């Protein structure tokens, strides 16, 4: 019995996972990573470390400021080693929530750098991937946001609020993005982020103290990819249209003119059905129900006839907008961001294999897509009539 206990105690100290033991305050928690291409062709890696306590003693309130470390290297791992030497704590990758890549990296091909983060066992593969537009990726990390108490979380919360309430950005997480690249006939998109205002002012704490921040991050364009290579940007309207056609939208917002008055329609319930006929014909049906969020001018919206007319107009306008985006993708970028190729592959795998290489150049641009829209205006918000109508 005694021997057994001694053996057990010995085992506890000999074979335990003590190697995995680390105190939380000895960790440098990396929450965001920026990957840039430096001028000399090396990779420049930047880490946003979330837990650098303020230099004063007041660690009581749990205040944290962020610090950015960067390093260059031929490979990403080499760059990491440079950073590791600079930081006094050991780097911890378990809580990365945003990865920003620069335009150059995207142009060169994302798959070149995709391996390192996926292979690391410590990372959760569920972080957001962004592309920086015009600025370097490192600049994006530097901007501090006034509304977020944890500065390290500002980019992630920006994406989250945008994706649920606006769906302007085609937000995507890291591993689904890689999956999309590897899948057949489905080109990915990435949200593009840029800095508005002076980046110098935005990276100091002073940006937090002003009532109107001098610098902020803007997230509304989408970066279009063919396979893993970046080809160009589209604006927010196109970005929304892509989301609708992919049946991947939670809130659809559309403004149009009716009798020369501005009307804004919002729908939280949009469904898209794609019907594949053959390699040349595709039918898309968009169905939605929503409400009016803004009606300026004298329109008698109490009359069913008027509302019906409005719906007709809305359907026409949305159809036009969707077709415009579709055309842009087909003719300008040749990027099948709607996954038509993927659906065709599912139905005719053998024929797909023959034309796979020619899909983006030859087949996709010639595809005849017939879009049908069907929207219903179910309510008019808190007001039954318009203010202009009451004035009359």
């Amino acid at each position: 019995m005694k021997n057994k206990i001694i053996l057990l105690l010995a085992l506890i100290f000999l074979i335990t996972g003590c190697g995995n033991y680390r105190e939380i305050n000895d960790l440098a928690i990396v929450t965001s990573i920026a990957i840039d291409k430096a001028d000399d062709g090396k990779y420049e890696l930047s880490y946003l470390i979330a837990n650098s306590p303020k230099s004063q003693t007041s660690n009581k309130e749990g205040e944290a400021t962020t610090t950015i470390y960067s390093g260059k290297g031929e490979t990403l791992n080499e760059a990491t080693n440079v950073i590791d030497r600079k930081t006094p704590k050991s780097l911890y990758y378990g809580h990365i929530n945003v990865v920003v890549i620069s335009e150059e990296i995207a142009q060169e091909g994302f798959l070149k750098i995709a391996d390192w983060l996926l292979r690391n066992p410590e990372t959760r593969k569920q972080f957001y991937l962004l592309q920086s537009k015009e600025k370097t990726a490192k600049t994006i990390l530097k901007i501090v946001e006034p509304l977020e108490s944890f500065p390290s979380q500002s980019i992630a919360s920006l994406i989250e609020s945008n994706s649920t309430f606006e769906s302007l950005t085609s937000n995507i997480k890291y591993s689904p993005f890689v999956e999309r690249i590897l899948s057949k006939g489905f080109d990915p998109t990435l949200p593009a982020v840029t800095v508005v205002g002076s980046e110098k002012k935005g990276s100091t704490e002073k940006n937090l103290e002003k009532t109107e921040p001098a610098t902020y991050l803007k997230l509304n364009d989408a970066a279009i990819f063919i396979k893993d290579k970046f080809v160009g940007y589209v604006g927010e309207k196109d970005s929304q249209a892509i989301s609708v056609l992919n049946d991947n939208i939670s809130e659809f917002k559309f403004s149009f003119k009716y009798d020369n008055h501005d009307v804004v329609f919002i729908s939280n319930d949009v469904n898209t059905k794609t019907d594949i006929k053959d390699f040349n014909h595709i039918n898309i049906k968009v169905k939605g129900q929503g409400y009016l969020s803004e009606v300026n001018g004298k329109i008698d919206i109490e009359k069913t006839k008027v509302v019906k007319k409005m719906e007709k107009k809305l359907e026409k306008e949305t159809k036009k907008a969707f077709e415009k985006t579709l055309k842009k993708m087909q003719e300008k970028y040749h990027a099948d961001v709607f996954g038509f190729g993927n659906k065709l592959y599912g139905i005719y795998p053998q024929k797909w294999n023959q034309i796979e290489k020619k899909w983006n150049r030859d087949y996709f641009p010639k595809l005849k897509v017939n879009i049908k829209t069907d929207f219903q205006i179910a309510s008019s918000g808190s007001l039954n009539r318009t203010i202009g109508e009451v004035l009359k």
Partner: protein
Amino acid sequence: MTKAKLIIEKVKKLYGNSSDLQTRIIDVHGTDIGVLFMESSSSSETVSKFIIKSIDYVAKNTNKLSNIYNHLKNNIFNSQLTTVTNFSDFPYYLSSGFTIIIADDVNEAMALETRATLDRGVTESTSEPILRGPKDSFTESNSKNLGLIRKRIKDHNLWFDEVKVGARTKSKVNIAYIKDIADTNCVEAIKQVLEKIDIDGILDGGNLREYMLNKKSVFPQILSTERPDLACQSLLDGKIVILVENSPFVLILPNVFIDFIHTSEDQYQKPFSISFTRILKVIALIITLFTPAIYIAITTFDQTVVPDELLISLAVQREGVPFPTFFEVILLMAIFEILRESDVRSPANMGASMSIVGALILGQAAVDAGIVSPIAVIVIAITSICSLIFTDVDFMNGIRSWRFIFILSATFFGLIGVVATGLMLVLKLSSLDSFGVPFLAPFSPLIHSSQKDAVVRYPLPRIFKRPEYLQNKDKTKQGGHNEK
């Protein structure tokens, strides 16, 4: 033939001429009547008023020829008269507060009850206070304790079996049970255990408890209470209550794990709110067992499971704390246990100064000085408050022991260790039994009909059966309905 004088001398010698042994010899028509009693345990007033007076009365109403002893036996003013024929029984009766009367040339003696009241009255329960329900509690007096039960259950089937335990203390131990409900095999088993005990003395039920366990465990397998209403509830459920002389705590057995989460009050309040309270208690049990261990595991091994913002907050709070998390937690837990222990032992008027030192200096100042992190103080505070929700001290201590095991396994193995130790705890608990009743009943083995008063309590009109895990003779609690 013996002379009263000689016997008195013999008794005096037996007690080493103890100062409280009082003797008196009364000459009645030439026959010596000896009166012996202990001044300390008997009431002198009763002895003078009734015993001496009766002897005087008998002396006046008899003549020399009559049998004085028999006259005395028939005419003495006392309700309890025992005939003692064996001299070796004298000390037991004398020490218990009896008065012994002997006479010349008689081979027996009379023992008359003249006990002094050496116990406090029936007072409110201090260790198990309740809001609604009877407030009385058991006292140190054996007859009062039996009375408190007897007056609640008037059935003649409520039997008290007496066993004397302890070579020197000769303490009365009463096994109370309702004959036609309780499992009599269990009563026999308990009696056998009690009769086998060969010790110089027992002073409390706690002494007896250690003889009745067949498996080692930090969790108590026998419930102890000072509430007569809880004892009666248990009797009606078919359990057995053991009352020990001079102890205000009675033992209830067989006992299962879930009983420690129940209180006697549960039966008097509304079922819905009691179910809610019991669920809270189960949650508190889980919190108090696991919180420190999980805190250690997630801050030193498995940081990945913590939400982003919490992790950053934790990391910043731990900044500058010189000790490892494990040591920090152990330190705070030790301080709390010391505080609790000194609070129990110290006189009531020292409580205020202790709470100031405990709360302000140890808590606030330690955080400000950067010795411990605020989050560790919060973790220990939650753990301690949740452990105080249970009234049974032994149960609380059992939880404490397992909490330390959990902390150790979390320190060495992280969350995996906590899960593995949790499994060990369940295995250990399910291997226990109390006189044949599985400790985890009615959950393991699962008994559906007994779930009506386990974690949730059904309204009383809907509970027809007594707990089925007890081997009761009479299984129905409430008639008029057929169990479907």
